[in-house]
């Protein structure tokens, strides 16, 4: 239904998932998002391209889209990512992020098993599900 003049076009999304569903899935399948992890800047460029191609939303909603992409679809290099990146992508708290940074300063992590063995407080199930986005360079 076409909204009346002066009304909002649609309810504004207030969560990252809702924003992605409303804005991204309005034009294409979610697989196009979930199949193509990329780093934060690349996602930023992608979202801008989508806006240029007609994606509609507010600045706040596009911010929520970026939140979703950062938390779920952004790769991280455990041996180089900053605390914010580690916390966001690995879904860990600051204490765990600092523990990773302290350990890698001594000896870089070798792989996922090394990470899981060396740092407490990690969600193994989550790490397993995101392992294609976790790098040790």
């Amino acid at each position, binding site marked *: 239904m076409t909204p009346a003049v002066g009304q*909002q076009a649609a309810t504004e999304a207030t969560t990252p998932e809702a924003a992605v569903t409303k804005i991204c899935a309005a034009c294409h399948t979610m697989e196009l998002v979930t199949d193509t992890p990329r780093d934060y800047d690349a996602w*930023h460029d992608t979202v801008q391209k989508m*806006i240029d191609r007609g994606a509609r939303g507010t600045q706040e909603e596009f911010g929520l889209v970026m939140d979703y992409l950062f938390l779920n679809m952004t790769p991280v*290099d455990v041996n180089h990512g900053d605390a914010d*990146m580690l916390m966001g992508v690995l879904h860990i708290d600051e204490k765990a992020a600092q523990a990773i940074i302290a350990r890698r300063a001594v000896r870089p992590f070798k792989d996922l098993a090394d990470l899981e063995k060396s740092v407490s407080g990690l969600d193994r199930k989550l790490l397993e599900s995101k392992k294609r986005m976790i790098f040790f360079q």
Partner: protein
Amino acid sequence: MKNVMKIAGALLVGTCAVALAQSAAAPDRPGAARAASSDNPLPANANVVGSGPIVMPPVPRPAGAGPQRPRGDFTIHSRHLLYVTMPGSLERQMYPNGSGIIVLDADNNYAFVKRIHMWEYAGSMAAEDVAGVAARPATTMLYLAVRGRLGALDLATDKMVWTASLDGKCCERPQVSADGKHLVVGSNLQDYWYVLDAKTGKHIRTLHAPGSPGTHNLNLSADGKRAFMSPNGKLLQIADVESGKIIQKIQFPENVRVQALNKDSSKIYVNQNNFLGYMVADTNTGKILQTVEVTSVDWRSVWNKTPRPRVPHGCPSHGIALSPDGKEVWIADAIFNKIHIFSNTDNPKEIATIDTPEGTYWIMFGLDGKLVYASSGDIIDPVTRKVVAVTKSEWGTRMHSEKELDMTFIDGRLQRVANQFGNEYGDFVTAEKLGVGPHMPVMQGPAYPIASNPGVDPNAGMPQSTAR
């Protein structure tokens, strides 16, 4: 068969992916791989897990690069445009810029965007003079008044939504309340103003102002409740828009010309005939508070001689605006082609003068007071007092217009619009911040076309006026 092929294809893809993964992954870590070669197309650092797509690692950031781009720093499809109406200066009917609304891109040095033809005119006919222009986000419409009719333009399609001639004596400068419910517009030189529904154009009531013939300018308080109706005469009347009753009258010594309101519309600043300066009146008591004269130029010796010099609009000053911070009063000087700027204090002083050789007969502050639009076509930085741009048509010729609108859009939806009058309360966003205007939600999403039946007159059949 089709399904079999699909499964086979999937298996093939899966097998390939596994093969790639095996070849890509070094024995010591999942992300490591041999260097790319003709038999191994993967980049050395690609991550391949199962049959999923290849994921590239994040691009290393240089040391000390700081945080990544701020979240939400996107270029939404916003536009900042200036709508210049033509012929928009009564004194320049022969000025060769044609008719219609010329849209300029304020974000691109006022480059020409397009020309909108509100009404078509035969080549043999002269276009009607534009009397005033207004617009409102609440309706996403622009309202153009000409001597004879009033039109509402859908800003999402640039098509006419409705057009009205009312009783045949329409129209002067229109103003629209922030909520888009009321459009108040003067009759053409009569002694009444019409109140219309801004969305439909339907006539709601008439504001009669006996004793004020020569309907001319019209202003609204930021809350849209009071109409300040000035004729080209000495008696300015203030009406309650809802009831239609006159609630105050202000008698001036000379004909009132352009007017502007302060923040809470408790004071009105007006140009006067035969006076280079301005007067300030209290709108609650009806008393004149200040008479401020320009003394930096000897205007009286030029003006008070026979024959009197002919200047546009026939008065020394036709143009007044308050800066959005309320600290300055800008007035036009039609004798010496200048703008004089006064401090807006109990004891006003002229603090600056700007030359506008092309002649200024209207002054408007743009959104947030960042720029000043003079009818000479000069666009002025109010801080440096310098002319920073000139309004030009698609032919590169300077455009003179006393009826312009500074507007911002997102995806065709009007977001903000500066007032054609130089009121201190600015647009509805500023008025709300100042606590004098209602809250109006910022419209989201793309604008939806509303011009479905262009050219319909919502007041067809209205009795025609027999007044002069």
